[in-house]
């Protein structure tokens, strides 16, 4: 069993908390807008031959908030400094939801920063059709439950939300919501210039999307595909916004195959 550890790095002008686990070539992971959900089966699988590096976003409870970060582009700039200071570049990266937005912003600003990039149900571009679910005028409970197609049939969902919350969990989710709102309120969880800045990007890119995603519509995947013409798309059927835990076997298969190519 591979365990993850947490360490605090003095880096890029911040005290960044990084979750680290596994061995082998680094794989950088950007968690979603609700925060790092914990070490799951898919982490364990990928960690057999990759070192997973999961920075905990500033303002999400553990890494102190950086007041100067006021947009996802600012946040991407910060993470780019982290990658350069750690001498990781070019590095493989996976971004989930708003984490996909971060990765895409990083790639747009520095096309050589990633060797391969996986965007899982990414926010960041206004969908060609449909809308990114407004996650702010709903309670945490509603939001959490909307992230998976079948909460009862997704055992690992119970690790994220088991039906009740401790005050500490509640506070952590509130921290995450507050910081997401701070940097993603308007334009809502996207950047109108991002698709233009992504044009011509050569980084091999995989877009992963669950066919029953309630949070990010298929229109976001289509919009990313228009911006990054060579991007591959993997649709995982009957799962929602968290394919990595809703069908972890299929998720691992498509991601591993792409990263190994």
């Amino acid at each position, binding site marked *: 069993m591979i365990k993850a550890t947490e360490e605090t790095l003095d880096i890029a002008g911040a005290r960044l908390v990084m979750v680290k686990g596994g061995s082998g070539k680094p794989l950088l992971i950007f968690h979603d807008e609700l925060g790092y959900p914990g070490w799951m089966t898919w982490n364990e699988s990928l960690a057999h031959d990759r070192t997973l590096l999961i920075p905990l976003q500033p303002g999400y409870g553990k890494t102190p908030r950086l007041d100067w970060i006021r947009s996802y582009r600012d946040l991407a700039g910060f993470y780019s400094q982290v990658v350069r200071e750690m001498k990781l570049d070019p590095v493989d990266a996976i971004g989930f939801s708003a984490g996909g937005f971060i990765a895409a912003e990083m790639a747009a600003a520095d096309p050589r920063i990633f060797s391969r990039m996986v965007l899982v149900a990414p926010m960041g571009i206004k969908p060609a059709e449909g809308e990114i679910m407004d996650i*702010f*005028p*709903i*309670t*945490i*409970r*509603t939001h959490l439950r909307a992230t998976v197609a079948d909460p009862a049939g997704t055992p690992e969902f119970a690790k994220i939300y088991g*039906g*009740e*919350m401790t*005050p*500490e969990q*509640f*506070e952590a989710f*509130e*921290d995450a*919501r*507050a*910081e*997401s*709102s*701070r940097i993603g*309120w*308007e334009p809502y969880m996207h950047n109108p210039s991002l698709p233009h800045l992504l044009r011509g990007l050569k980084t091999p890119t995989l877009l992963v999307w669950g066919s029953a995603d309630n949070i990010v519509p298929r229109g976001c995947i289509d919009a990313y595909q228009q911006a990054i013409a060579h991007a591959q798309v993997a649709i995982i059927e009957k799962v929602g916004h968290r394919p990595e835990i809703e069908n972890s076997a299929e998720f691992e298969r498509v991601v591993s195959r792409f990263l190994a190519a």
Partner: protein
Amino acid sequence: MKIGYFTERPVRWVPEEVILQNGAHFGVSNKYFDREKASDEYNYWLDENCYAEEVGFDIVALNEHHGNPFCMGSVMNVEAAILARITKRARILLIGNPLPIIKHPLRMAEELAEIDLISRGRLIAGWVRGAGSEQFFNNANPSYNREYFEEAHDFIVQAWTRPGPWRYEGKHFHYRHVNPWALPYQKPYPPMWIPGTLSPETVLWCAKHSYPYFGLGTSLGPTCDLWEYYAEEAQRNGYQAGPENFGYVIPTFIAETEEKAQELGKGFLFGGGQNTFARPEHTLPPGYNSKDAIRRLAKQPHGSWLGISGEKLRGHTEERKVDPEEVHRKLEPGYKRAQSQYQLIIGSPKTVTAKLKTILAVLRPGSLVVFNVQGPISNKDRQTSMRLMAQEVGPALKEHAKSLGLVDAIERTPGQSKIQPGVKRVPVADKGPLKELGLL
């Protein structure tokens, strides 16, 4: 002491079951908006405020809410500007302009200056953060709510006092040419009275600026505590807080008889009353509350109010049939409890006088603002309540206030009573009567 008049100017024609079905006033579709009725009502509300002045209120108070039939005031400065012209004597109190959601402090400075000029110095400005739901309505980033509030306030004070033109580059607001050619009539600027619902951060901010803090129908015990908290901070800032630093807004309805008052006073429960102003998910947008406030809320045992447990939330997300009669039956005990706890003051002039005297003795406010009934109550009954308040209750209250030494913020500028370091400050509230009434 000053006595003020306030009404939310409720939409009186919207079917109650529509509000109940929605689970809150906020979010009721404007397909129910009736332009003819609204036109009549906006005119009536102005007339009603003139009537308030006519029967003897010292202050007429306005507010605004957005996307919500609880209150027809969407742009209070428009109403204030008209009242500035058509009233003659009453102070016009704004409780208050929601700075973070308007997001244009220079425009605000100009609008208020014009109102103050037209009224020849009768404006009392007041600021609020805006309810949670209003952050959504106005697309105002709730995570920056307090920063917007404080920066906008600081900017407005500068815009009113610093000769222009000058350039402003703040964190949230930017103006390259600040030089408003409308400055307030009052020098250096109108008084600012700040309403709130007991956020300690706001209380502290008021004390630092020596701005009067107005409890919006807040529970008496916690209000006393927060007012002492204000007074502590006042002392740290070198002054003794007194009645001039405090005001209280209290829902009040009076009729000639107890029975009639009790029946019509149920208008306060219309659509579920204040507790259904907005649904939980609209009340607490992300980042709107401080981390301390979130920590306090998170430790509340059940917390279903916040959606931590499912019961309340399910009620709001599933289709349901609502029977207004049943809802009223359920609200009945709360109606009585709110009265026994002095959160709703309803009755004949005699009952109301006695209860408001108690509130004066406990909270020792320099100003008291009565909030007229909600719901589809007739103009005649509303005006009866106003007349009885101003002409029968008011004089007795003022006499009582005098005996208690309740000086208002117009008579004595808040912050003027200096206190030397090491000198023990005087308490600003008195919980004694609450103990006697068994309310602690």
